[in-house]
């Protein structure tokens, strides 16, 4: 037995010295190699769940800091790292990639993308991560390029222009590799872009297919845009999608229509904004779509990660998609057909009185943005947002970070489009600064607070809540030992019992957690990593500061 462990350790150790060779078959079976974290969401089903069990509810209180990676940038650190055979690949803002020795935290190499002096993305110069295929990493950049980087050396292999950054396009999303293609698209929903999702040949960077998220003339859905409003209609892409190999479908969430708060200038449903689109992975052809917020008036980007799960639905096993949307509703869709199965609010919301049988929301009169300002729930950052939700096949629960009792006053006015400039058609004022603040909590709790919320996917009913004083932009990781890891704006990283929500361990990291945690093993030992403030922290069982010589 001991010898087996030794051999296994040797193999793992040797593997860490071999260049990463991540075939697409490995990505398809990512859940089967939990020692790694091979895609943005841990697997192509995007469950953000790991089968690792060394860290348990019983021993999680013994977690200690192992190492810290300090970014050189002061921008918000939203990235989820990849871990491949002992090497961590992480992006730090604006577009720097580091390959890190997971044993020590020391870098093997650092790649810095040459940036123009200024870029024009909305809301912060962030990047959310990488994809890998073979021995190549794929990075989206704020100047709207897609870059292929050699995973062994950090040298650039190719660089493809995705869109014109001076017109407000930028790539912040972690790309997704499907077969021999790299899929990504541009952010810019507040800049009047015409969004799209595109697949690029992983070897050459050549565009293979492109799906327009604001339907162009001649494309189905263009009739849902008044006049030429599709040209500046947003439909940004800024959070990574999922893939079902059996159906050969790529699923991706799309951003708000533009201008954000003035729907009068873009009458119609505005397809395919605020939607999930199911695309043929080989051709990019639309198989089905579901639009969460037709003719959106509140900036309810539907960029959330599509979580693919096989659940028992009314007595039968069904391939579904679980979706906690920024608009405050939790959805269950049939992911083969797009059929609407369930839509139920998971936070306080006032913009809709419900969803009809066809899956269309019924808007509440009087909640539209106005010149004098209109209050509506949820507020502009939504009931949830871009950070990872999780589904645990063990508990059967869907977990998400939610903003409860949170509202915004929405304003609307006319605005002319100018390329590259802000194009929002209004404004949004919340009771507290909703994107990023100093480390003080001063407002009244009646203005909103954060929760980690566990939902029963079959009903949308809340199973438990973990309530926080502040709101949170942290994603969720669950493990097969029924642990849940997340963090919050207060600066805590914590572990909960995934069955009950009971807090089991907590560590103050000194600044806002606005990222999603991952877990993996090094030399057969389980670790958990999370970005907070301007650094990435790695925790494991046992003491800090082990002597190695």
């Amino acid at each position, binding site marked *: 037995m001991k010898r087996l462990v030794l051999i296994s350790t040797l193999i793992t150790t040797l593997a860490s010295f071999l260049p990463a060779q991540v075939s697409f078959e490995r990505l398809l079976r990512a859940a089967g190699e939990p020692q790694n974290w091979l895609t943005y969401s841990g697997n192509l089903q995007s469950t953000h769940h790991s089968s690792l069990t060394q860290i348990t509810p019983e021993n999680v209180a013994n977690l200690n800091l192992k190492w810290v990676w300090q970014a050189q940038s002061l921008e918000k650190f939203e990235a989820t790292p990849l871990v491949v055979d002992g090497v961590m690949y992480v992006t730090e803002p604006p577009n720097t990639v580091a390959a890190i020795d997971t044993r020590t935290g020391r870098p093997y190499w650092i790649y810095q993308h040459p940036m123009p*002096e200024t870029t024009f993305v909305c809301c912060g110069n962030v990047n959310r991560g990488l994809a890998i295929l073979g021995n190549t990493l794929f990075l989206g950049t704020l100047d709207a390029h897609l870059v292929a980087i050699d995973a062994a050396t950090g040298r650039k292999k190719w660089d493809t222009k995705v869109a014109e950054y001076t017109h407000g396009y930028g790539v912040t999303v972690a790309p997704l590799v499907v077969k021999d293609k790299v899929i990504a698209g541009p952010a810019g929903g507040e800049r009047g872009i015409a969004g799209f999702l595109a697949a690029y040949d992983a070897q050459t960077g050549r565009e293979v297919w492109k799906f327009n998220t604001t339907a162009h003339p001649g494309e189905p859905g263009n009739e849902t845009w008044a006049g030429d409003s599709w040209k500046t209609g947003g439909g940004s892409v800024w959070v990574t999608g999922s893939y079902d190999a059996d159906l050969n479908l790529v699923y991706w969430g799309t951003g708000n229509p533009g201008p954000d708060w003035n729907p009068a200038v873009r009458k119609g449903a505005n397809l395919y904004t605020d939607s999930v689109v199911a695309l043929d992975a080989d051709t990019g052809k639309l198989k089905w779509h579901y639009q969460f917020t037709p003719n959106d008036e509140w900036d309810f980007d539907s960029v959330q990660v599509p979580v693919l799960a096989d659940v028992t639905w009314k007595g039968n096993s069904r391939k579904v998609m679980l979706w906690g949307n920024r608009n405050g509703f939790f959805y269950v869709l049939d992911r083969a057909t797009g059929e609407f199965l369930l839509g139920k609010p998971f936070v306080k919301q006032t913009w809709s009185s419900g969803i009809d049988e066809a899956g269309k929301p019924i808007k509440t009169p009087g909640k539209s943005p106005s010149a004098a300002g209109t209050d509506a729930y949820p507020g502009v950052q939504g009931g949830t947002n871009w950070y990872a939700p999780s589904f645990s096949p063990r508990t059967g629960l869907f977990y998400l970070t939610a903003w409860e009792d949170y509202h915004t006053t929405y304003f609307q006015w006319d605005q002319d489009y100018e390329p590259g400039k802000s194009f929002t058609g209004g404004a949004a004022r919340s009771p507290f600064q909703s994107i990023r603040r100093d480390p003080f909590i001063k407002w009244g709790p009646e203005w909103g607070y954060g929760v980690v919320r566990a939902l029963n996917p079959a009903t949308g009913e809340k199973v438990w809540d973990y309530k926080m004083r502040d709101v949170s932009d942290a994603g969720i990781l669950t493990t097969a030992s029924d642990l849940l890891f997340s963090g919050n704006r207060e600066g805590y990283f914590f572990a909960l019992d995934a069955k009950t929500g009971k807090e089991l361990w907590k560590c103050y990291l000194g600044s806002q957690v606005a990222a999603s945690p991952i877990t993996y093993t090094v030399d057969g030992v389980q670790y958990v990593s999370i970005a907070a403030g301007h650094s990435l922290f790695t925790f494991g069982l046992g003491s800090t500061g082990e002597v190695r010589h």
Partner: protein
Amino acid sequence: MILKEVGLVALLCCCGTGWLGAQDHTNVISNPFATSEDIVAGERSFRSQCAACHGPDASGAAGPSLTTGTFRHGDSDEALFVTITKGVTGTPMVAFKLDGREVWQLISFLRSANVGKAAGQAPGNPGKGAQIFTENGCAQCHTAGKPGGFSGPDLTDIGSRRSLVQLETALLNPNAEVDPDYWSLRARTKTGQTISGIRMNEDTDSFQILDSSRRLLSIWKADLASYEIVRTSPMPSFKGKLQSSDLGDLVAYLASLRAQPSREAQQ
């Protein structure tokens, strides 16, 4: 990009001896687009480019208020120009794609939106107001340019940050608008001890407070039997306690407490 840079350099050069004179705070760069028409144009740009984060009237939303007369990343026109065109690292304030004229017009609008801009026109006598300030013991709690108390807000540049109406309201009805920085915690521990003080910070588990003995205290919420956040001001109202002329003088004194020339200009 290059064009914009050239535009900035050209505009700065147009402003005469700006850079050369930067060591003399009487001779800083002046805004070449500061007419009333420029302010109107600046307001138009503000609504389309800035209001989404800073609020329709610049009084703050996702981003901070821009009406207080002081700017975190530099108060001078040049500093504002750089903030708008380059963004602020580490914040959602990214670079904005505007030409030089638009930026200067925005700055002109921001100057006009300062709520304290008319405070210097108070009809009262600021000298007499200073005397009333001293006689009523205001300095026990407030600093106003010279050393004073710390338990109330610092009034050193209050005239730049508040309108005349706001100043008078604060004196007559201190509870009308109490900044959350001055909300206090009143709590009873599970062992029966009473705790109170200004709430400096809070999170899910704890409070950080400043008690009346000027001690910084850490409190676990789990140790408290009950607590409340008191949102009223400890400041007494001056309603009926001051003659209206004295009130006008006191307002005039507070209005005269202006922000210093910008840091950049003093260097």
